[in-house]
């Protein structure tokens, strides 16, 4: 052996230390701190996903209740704040969490890829020449770097579909979410996209929920078992709730056959408004 040359190689840093930014930005500069931020943003996104899912259950109460729910979101803050201000604050906050979550996911993955150089890093994991025999890593933990981007793309698709109405065209009626949802999800390809993406989301949440306690360092050995149960429960609730929409629309159980108000953005919305007030 020729120890001198090789010892130097072993102790040469793989990553350069960056000039520290002022507190608290320096927390995000470290990988552990970045993962900590990732967990917080993950919790924020998780909160959104659950509230969004529960809110959408109003779909099963019919067009006017759904309309009422959408209006309530715009009126959040009551008369105290300008209409839609609070909604916009939440949207901006959500977008910020999304961007930070994504940035941390990407940069930390790059760090792991570089740290595994020469070993090869395929599909988000270090490779050996022989087949790896994983014991603890599960399907969910090994696919975070696939389920994450699938969810990200799906969110864009979902906004274009139901917020901006890009391809529903004339069938899209701003302000009548019940109609838009039924219209969109009655197309088989769209329903399939919703199903696939929400399965990915549930798988992501399954590992994410377990993982975030670890990243935040708030675990307690006594309750570690409960973390798995919580992860299963949250993933299950999100899965069942979100899948129910495309499945029930496709099954014809949610439709517009006995709707009282016409579908258009003039008299239709007026009628929905009156029905909502009557509640």
């Amino acid at each position, binding site marked *: 052996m020729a120890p001198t040359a090789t010892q130097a190689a072993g102790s040469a840093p793989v990553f350069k230390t960056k000039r520290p930014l002022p507190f608290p930005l320096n927390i995000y500069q470290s990988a552990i701190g970045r993962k900590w931020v990732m967990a917080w943003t993950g919790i924020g996104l998780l909160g959104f996903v659950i509230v969004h899912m529960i809110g959408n259950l109003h779909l099963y109460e019919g067009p006017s209740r759904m309309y009422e729910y959408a209006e309530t979101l715009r009126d959040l803050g009551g008369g105290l704040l300008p209409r839609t201000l609070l909604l916009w604050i939440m949207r901006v906050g959500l977008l910020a969490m999304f961007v930070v979550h994504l940035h941390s996911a990407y940069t930390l993955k790059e760090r792991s890829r570089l740290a595994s150089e020469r070993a090869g890093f395929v599909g988000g994991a270090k490779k050996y020449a*022989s087949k790896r*025999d994983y014991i603890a890593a599960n399907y969910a933990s090994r696919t975070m770097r696939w389920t994450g981007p699938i969810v990200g793309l799906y969110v864009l698709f979902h906004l274009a579909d139901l917020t901006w109405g890009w391809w529903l065209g004339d069938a899209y009626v701003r302000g009548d979410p019940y109609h838009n949802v039924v219209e969109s999800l009655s197309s088989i390809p769209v329903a399939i996209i919703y199903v696939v993406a929400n399965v990915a989301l549930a798988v992501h949440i399954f590992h994410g929920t377990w993982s975030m306690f670890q990243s935040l360092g708030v675990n307690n050995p006594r309750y570690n078992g409960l973390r798995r149960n919580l992860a299963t429960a949250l993933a299950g609730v999100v899965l069942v709730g979100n899948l129910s929409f495309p499945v029930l629309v496709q099954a014809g159980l949610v439709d517009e056959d006995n709707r009282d108000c016409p579908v258009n953005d003039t008299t239709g919305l007026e009628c929905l408004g009156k029905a909502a007030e009557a509640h």
Partner: protein
Amino acid sequence: MSGANGVTSQASQQSHGGTLSLTLRIWRQDGPDAPGRFHTFDAPNISEDMSFLELLDIINERLIEGGDVPIEFDHDCREGICGMCSLMINGRAHGHELATTTCQLHMRKFTDGDVITVEPFRAKAFPVVRDLVVDRSSFDRIIEAGGYISVNTGAVGDANQTPVPKQAADTSMDAAACIGCGACVAACPNSAAQLFTSAKLAHLNLIPQGQPQRWERTEAMVETMEQFFGSCTNHGECTEACPKEISLDFIAFMNRDYVKAKIKNRKLTGQS
């Protein structure tokens, strides 16, 4: 144990007499930058009582007899306490036996006719020196950054002068069981060294003797680790590969202490 009884029962425990015929695919690489490749070796008549390293010894003796260069692999104590042995055996760090180092892995855990693939531990910060030997001195850099306590070495203090809570002593001992072998990094799909670093931190951060330098140590060791290794995604492969069964809970403890250290160290240097 006394008398002939003891002797015979011990003898029968040690010698099962069984032998195995195995095929080994072993990674060979002439130097850090040389390309590596697998070489196949037949290993007939391997005693079940041998350790995995003794199997490699046998293969090496044959190589030497034939005038070939023996396979380089790391080892020292051969009793599971030094952390020198390594090896990915059939895709598992230290082989498929849980809580066992390669030197303590016995051939009776394999089956006659097995094909066994042997590779070095892999990570950018563990460059191959030759064959199965990797340079793990990046771990030394982490220890140097804070894996110690500073004490006055004046007159001898009274015994038990510093009370250590029983639970803290026990948990600290669990962490101190880490032998620094690097199996956690090898097994990690991210090449992260969280398990090792967190064990070394918890070992000192849990007990009174480690308190004065706790926050300084945490920041320094974590940041040194981050000069070399990947980012943990909480797969948990490290704990399963670890011959000393170091718990993932230490990683959570390190994560918590690191963010705290960022805040505390700032206060301690007067930037409120």
